[in-house]
């Protein structure tokens, strides 16, 4: 069975501080995908990144960066120099896929609150 743990329920920071969101996953499959989604107060799910299990390269996109470590089964997400617009719930997800479908297992989410 797959499992995703986001131990941080809520993180509050002041603008311009860095914030790191933790994600730990469990799966017995060797091929899988990891994701981060942002859910702003408006409610939609905004795709941020997808990583497959064979690509452990870290990634940076603007103020966002991701650290994937298979050795610790973690896929952490850092927002550098946070802004008020970063206030949202962030979900980590794991997917094991077949040829025809994928089954996303989401973590419980981490609420990020950025205050001016």
């Amino acid at each position: 069975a797959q499992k995703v743990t986001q131990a941080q329920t809520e993180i509050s920071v002041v603008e311009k501080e860095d914030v790191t969101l933790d994600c730990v996953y469990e799966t017995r499959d060797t091929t899988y995908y990891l994701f981060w989604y942002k859910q702003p107060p408006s409610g939609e799910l905004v795709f941020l990144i997808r990583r497959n299990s064979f690509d452990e390269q870290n990634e940076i996109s603007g103020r966002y960066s991701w650290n994937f470590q298979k050795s610790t089964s973690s896929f952490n997400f850092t927002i550098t120099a946070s802004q008020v617009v970063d206030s949202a719930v962030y979900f980590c997800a794991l997917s094991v896929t077949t040829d025809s479908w994928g089954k996303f297992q989401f973590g419980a989410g981490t609420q990020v609150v950025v205050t001016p």
Partner: protein
Amino acid sequence: DTAVSQTPKYLVTQMGNDKSIKCEQNLGHDTMYWYKQDSKKFLKIMFSYNNKELIINETVPNRFSPKSPDKAHLNLHINSLELGDSAVYFCASSPPGRGHEQYFGPGTRLTVT
């Protein structure tokens, strides 16, 4: 152009009623999904259809019945609505052979009073 659309966006109804939520995708995908996000923000898959065939059916009360009239549509019908059905329901779709590329709709907020 909207890729995955859901109607309605908001739905308020009373206990015991029957309601439907519609989902349409114009991406040419062949697999569609329904996810439920409860009041604690927890997201969980409910159903998936591939080429109009049910392939994922999680532990969901049988009051929930998905229907896929064609590959571009996956509707969710809920009978005898209960207070606990209040949630946000997200539809998603994925292209052939790429279940890890799921495109999510904007969500439908269902409130049962």
